[in-house]
């Protein structure tokens, strides 16, 4: 369990407004008020690191000033042009003080963000948190597709091809990003890329077969996960923006 970090006082946040703070860990945290609730997110835009407090906030939707990415302030989910969710914190209020705590990476993952809380909690129970040193190979081409992975911290790179005929195939670096999706698919028994931690990394591992069983017991959530999975795959292989 991560510890609470102090951010500010309730009275620092304008009604239906936003304010950002640099907390003790050096992270920039954006705090927003909407109705009687407070929400906290990483204060830098997941697109290009622009300071989100300089953006537009109408009390419900936050818009980054640089490229107009938008998010629902109550969930951090992307709206319109935005391609990534905001990285959220759990907010705890004690008296007039606002504290934040790191959120579980699975609960932040776009793949699982729309499903029921009870199914989310069952999946969290199934995860195993593991730490890897830089250079660790998580899986190689042709390995069995057993687990899918959710990044908590660090950085993972992918490589296609064999021997000296390899090419880089992208990388992930944001908390809540999911990879090794093939573990959720039937008839996809082997890995098609190599995954390597290129920094010290913390990951949540989730067995694909067990996850599918949980999702099968909650078909509405299962449908949402598979729909989100199709969206994620499409984003990797097709152009995402109309010109």
């Amino acid at each position, binding site marked *: 369990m991560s510890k609470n970090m102090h951010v500010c006082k309730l009275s620092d946040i304008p009604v239906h407004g936003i304010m950002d703070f640099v907390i003790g860990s050096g992270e920039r945290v954006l705090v927003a008020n909407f109705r009687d609730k407070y929400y906290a997110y990483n204060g830098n835009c997941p697109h*290009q690191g622009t300071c989100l407090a300089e953006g537009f906030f109408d009390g419900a939707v936050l818009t980054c000033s640089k490229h107009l990415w938008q998010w629902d302030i109550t969930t951090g989910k992307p709206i319109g042009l935005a391609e990534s969710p905001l990285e959220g914190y759990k907010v705890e209020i004690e008296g007039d003080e606002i504290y934040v705590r790191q959120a579980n990476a699975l609960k932040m993952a776009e793949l699982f963000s729309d499903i029921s809380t009870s199914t989310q909690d069952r999946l969290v129970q199934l995860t195993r948190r593991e730490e890897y040193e830089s250079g660790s190979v998580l899986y190689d081409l042709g390995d069995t597709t057993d687990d899918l992975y959710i990044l908590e911290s660090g950085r993972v790179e992918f490589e296609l091809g064999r021997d000296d005929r390899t090419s880089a195939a992208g*990388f992930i670096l944001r908390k809540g990003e999911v990879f090794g999706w093939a573990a959720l698919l039937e008839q996809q028994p082997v890995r098609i890329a190599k995954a390597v931690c290129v920094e010290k990394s913390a990951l949540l591992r989730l067995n694909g077969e067990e996850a599918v069983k949980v999702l099968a017991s909650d078909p509405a959530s299962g449908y949402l996960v598979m729909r989100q999975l199709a969206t994620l795959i499409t984003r990797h*292989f097709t152009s*995402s923006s109309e*010109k």
Partner: protein
Amino acid sequence: MTTKTLNIQVNARNRAYALDGTSNDKILNLGLSNAVDLPYECGSGTCGTCKARLISGEICDQWPEAPGRKFLKLKKGEFLMCQCAAKTDSVIEVESFVHTMEAGACVPAPLKGRISSVKLLTPDVIFLQIALQQTVDFDAGQFMLVQFPEIVGFRGWSMVNYERHAKTLDFVIKKKPGGELSEWLFNNNCDGVEVDLFGPMGNATFYSRLAKNILCIAGGSGIAGIMSILSRASQDGYFSQYNGDVFFGVRTMKDAFFLDELSVLRGECGEKLNITIALSEEAAPDDARTDYPLLTFDQGFVHEVAGRHMEDRYQNLRAYLAGPPPLVNGSIGMLLRARVTTDNIRYDKFS
């Protein structure tokens, strides 16, 4: 002497691209001319959008004083792709999804031309025409990077004209007090001077299959790209079906230009096209209304004037914004409050 071919690998979030270039090629331009849609906005060293990280190899920064460097984490090896060329085989990383351009896109390329016309439109706005050695296709609303001899760096300017297979490109340029290029252009006889260009670039484009009403808010020389959009819309008879609202902001009537051209466009396109000249520092003189009966005149900052005139007419709308940052930001705020979705707000930030 042959220039050695260098291998430049661009690692993006979703895949890698292998590019063959030389030490003369800026990495952004190399990628774009290979139809790899690398991130950028100004293309000229100001906005910081094209930042990337050097993983291996060596690069040469051709403009170490570029204002966009303030957005970089230099200790992490970040650099501006629009200003840097590889010196050796290199691997770089772009922290976003990068795709290849769609079929039919106007792929940017290096071009050569010479200045064929220079004239003053107002005391501090110049009209510049460049005749190209080869024709070029571009979308209405796009811009071109232009480099002049003896002046360091490329500048980005939107085309005023619109035509397929264009042989000439028209630009308007605002004089910047003390600016090296402004002084050179305003004080020299530049006719016939050879220039290098790269483009077309920019995503604030208009095309007739858009099938939406359009709202254009421009300040000063920002009217350039809007003129191109109106030219294309007029050629396609677009305003027979859709509304067009154009707001052109200048300080005083002495700063206004293109009023004859806008009147002609209004005459060609009919009543569905409304063109309003917003004067920020004076009320419109009576003779302006007499001289330009097809144009409307109003007083105030252009985005505020636009807000008053548009009221509740934001349905099925695409907005194009062009001008200094306060105009663009003020207009964005107004459009968001009017619930215009962000995919329908188009602009290219040059700063």
